[in-house]
């Protein structure tokens, strides 16, 4: 097959009008989880996908990884359309909310998994595992059983495992949501530092705006399967594109801390209702 050259100079991820449907059969169209989303992530950039649960952000992430088929639109990387490229050949890493460490392998062999698949020699593999474990603050853990790890340690191992094969894009699906608040805040900083240190391009899915602002260079706010606004954190806070975005960021014109909390709760209640307008 010939390589189809993309637009010159285009690097990073390009999602165009992506549609993801669930439960579609010949007779029923199924429900739409992602409804025509377009998003660009430049090389080395970290973009957060921010939205309430059920807004389709995880579905979008899985479609980029190749785990869900696209019902419409396209996903390309470095100008190369990825339609028909199976998950294991995309060179994208994925970090699940609950880590999904292999229970039958110890910490070191979990981290080494992707390297084994690439056929990296044993000595080189061991060195890289040690280096990555040190990077995530778990030096010397290689021989430990994954069952003995705490929640935070598990996610650090999962991060090291995802980074080991040097993915050209790392997808993180609410990687910190299962952890308690203090750990989450600390790990969010660690994750950003690690991603920046390794120069990894990343899409970070979260429903927590503080976390999104901590980790990401740009934040994409998503609701009901559509993108509402994509901007740097300070732009987003200064000029939200509509009341929905402001609501979700916990912003209201001239609101003090108390009102802000109230609005947040109202916002959450709205999301349970039907027929929310997209801005």
């Amino acid at each position, binding site marked *: 097959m010939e390589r189809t050259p993309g637009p010159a100079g285009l690097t990073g991820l390009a999602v165009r009008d992506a549609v993801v449907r669930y439960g579609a059969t010949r007779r029923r169209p199924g429900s739409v989880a992602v409804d025509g989303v377009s998003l660009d992530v430049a090389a080395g950039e970290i973009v957060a996908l921010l939205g309430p649960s059920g807004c389709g952000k995880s579905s979008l992430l899985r479609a980029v990884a190749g785990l869900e088929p696209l019902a419409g639109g396209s996903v390309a990387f470095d100008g190369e359309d990825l339609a028909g490229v199976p998950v294991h050949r995309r060179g994208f890493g994925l970090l699940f909310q609950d880590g999904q460490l292999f229970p039958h392998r110890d910490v070191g062999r979990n981290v080494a998994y*992707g390297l084994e698949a690439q056929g990296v020699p044993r000595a080189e593999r061991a060195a890289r595992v040690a280096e990555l474990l040190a990077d995530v603050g778990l030096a010397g853990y290689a021989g430990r059983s994954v069952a003995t790890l705490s929640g935070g340690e598990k996610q650090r191992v999962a991060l090291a495992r995802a980074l080991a094969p040097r993915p050209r894009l790392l997808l993180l699906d609410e990687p910190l949501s299962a952890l308690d608040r203090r750990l989450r805040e600390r790990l969010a900083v660690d994750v950003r530092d690690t991603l920046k240190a390794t120069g990894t391009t990343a899409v970070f899915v979260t429903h927590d705006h503080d976390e999104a602002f901590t980790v990401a260079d740009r934040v994409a706010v998503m609701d009901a399967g559509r993108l509402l606004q994509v901007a740097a954190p300070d732009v987003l806070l200064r000029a939200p594109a509509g009341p929905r975005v402001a609501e979700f960021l916990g912003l209201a014109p001239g609101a003090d801390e108390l009102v802000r909390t109230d609005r947040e709760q109202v916002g959450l209640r709205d999301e349970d209702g039907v027929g929310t307008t997209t801005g």
Partner: protein
Amino acid sequence: MDDHGRGLTPARARASARPGRWGAWLGWGAAVALPLGFLAVFFAWPVVSLVLQGFFRETAAGPALDLSGFAEVLSQDRTWRIVGQTLAQALAGTALAVLLGLPGAYVLYRCRFPGRTLVRGLVTVPFVLPSVVVGVAFRALFAPGGLLGWAHLEESFAGIVLALVFFNYAVVVRTVGGLWERLDPRAEQAARALGATPWRAFRTVTLPALGPAIASAAAVVFLFCATAFGVVLVLGGLRYGTIETEIWTRTTQFLDLRSAAVLSVLQLVVVTGALVVSSRARARRERALHLTSDRVSAHRLRWRSAADLLPALATLVVVAGLLVLPMAGLVTRSLRAPDGSWGLDNYVALGTTGGRNALSVTVWEALGNSLRTAAWAALVAVVVGGLVALVVSRRPRRAGLRRGVGVLDAVFMLPLGVSAVTVGFGFLITLDRPLGLDVDLRTSGALVPIAQAVVAIPLVVRTMLPVLRAIDPRLREAAATLGAAPGRVLRTVDGPLGARSLGLAIGFAFAVSLGEFGATAFLARPDTATLPVVVYRLIGRPGAENYGMALAASVVLALLTATVMMVAERLRGDRPGGEF
């Protein structure tokens, strides 16, 4: 980007995407085709040929439809007496097994007490015991001079039902117990807090939740009881039989293949009904599982409370009286020499071919035959059953494929329902020229392990499937995003995690094959007789010497299967797997 040193450029990735997809289709296609081919040749073809014997008659102009065989068989009083006995035995056996099994499930899965693991193991042993051994054990118990000789249960309806319950008690205890163990106790506690008595809370909250598991267990037990062969053949004498033993009698004694074929059709009708009920119940149970928690909730056995004391006593009586007594009786009786003295004479005689040369081989040689055929049978069953379990454990995205997977699952449960006698009988009439090839499989000795494998495959599938299904699909997704191709995912994720069930599956298949009697009895030649066949032959021959040898051989066979099963259970550890 490429300074990261990635192995794959997108261009290469794209170019190699298509061959990879073809490989996947090819691999899954083979994984479906091999078991289906095996089932078609060694199950569907023999059974269908046999059934057609009942409908067609060979004439000069070729086969002609002829239903007179049906009219003839169905107009006989004997046929309806046998059908009535089959249903009555199966219904009584099922009702009693469920009634006794419920308290057993509660005590062994909802309470904690020292020695519980041992009792659970003990309860499981009868299920894998060869049916011939069970028949011999109960016969020794009921015979005049036996431990229960005073009850006059020899060749009686009650005697057969007791033996059936002995077999199937474990099915109820394990199926219901497995669900009960994981039932959230807070629902019952809520009912108690609302003022319900313990009995009322059990009746209105717990029992309905257990309903699907009870129905599923009852359907399986009914199936086993309705197709019981060896145990009825040994215990029923001339007065009691099932459709299964009748097929055997008409084939081997009267050489009446036609009416035997008609009876096989009748048997299929009964069994299909039970299978339909069973699959409905299983589907409901899989839905019911959502009501349960991952946590196992059990409390210490409270002897003071009637809610614990009564089930505990019931279980004690069943385990001691119904499970241990026959086995202990068998062992004791086997130590009694033909001259009435105590000693190992019967075991010494296992090196001979029996009084007046009742056998063509010594019992030890038969043991060798058994081990050899069972090993081959287990190998075939685990390969075929493992592939089926692997395919069925997948949830394809396309609805059509998903339905196909469901059909495959159901198709491979069929051998569980179709009687082993029918399979063995079908082998005899079809495999003299398999697929038109000029090799008579009937004399090659390969048929016995293959027939045993056919019988063991559903058990292998049911053992491995829940374990493979329990693997989180996201583990496979994680492996794929780390660059593992589908084959590598299978090898590094499904392989190691599924291997835990492999030990149990192999042990199960081996134990079942060791004790298989229905099909083997048809197919084994005198010089390749297996242990169960030898036991049956010995018990049918006159002479205290032969009877003593049958008892000793039964003990050896029982010890062997029980040991295999205990080792396999050990390999599994404490995690739930399998349905039996």
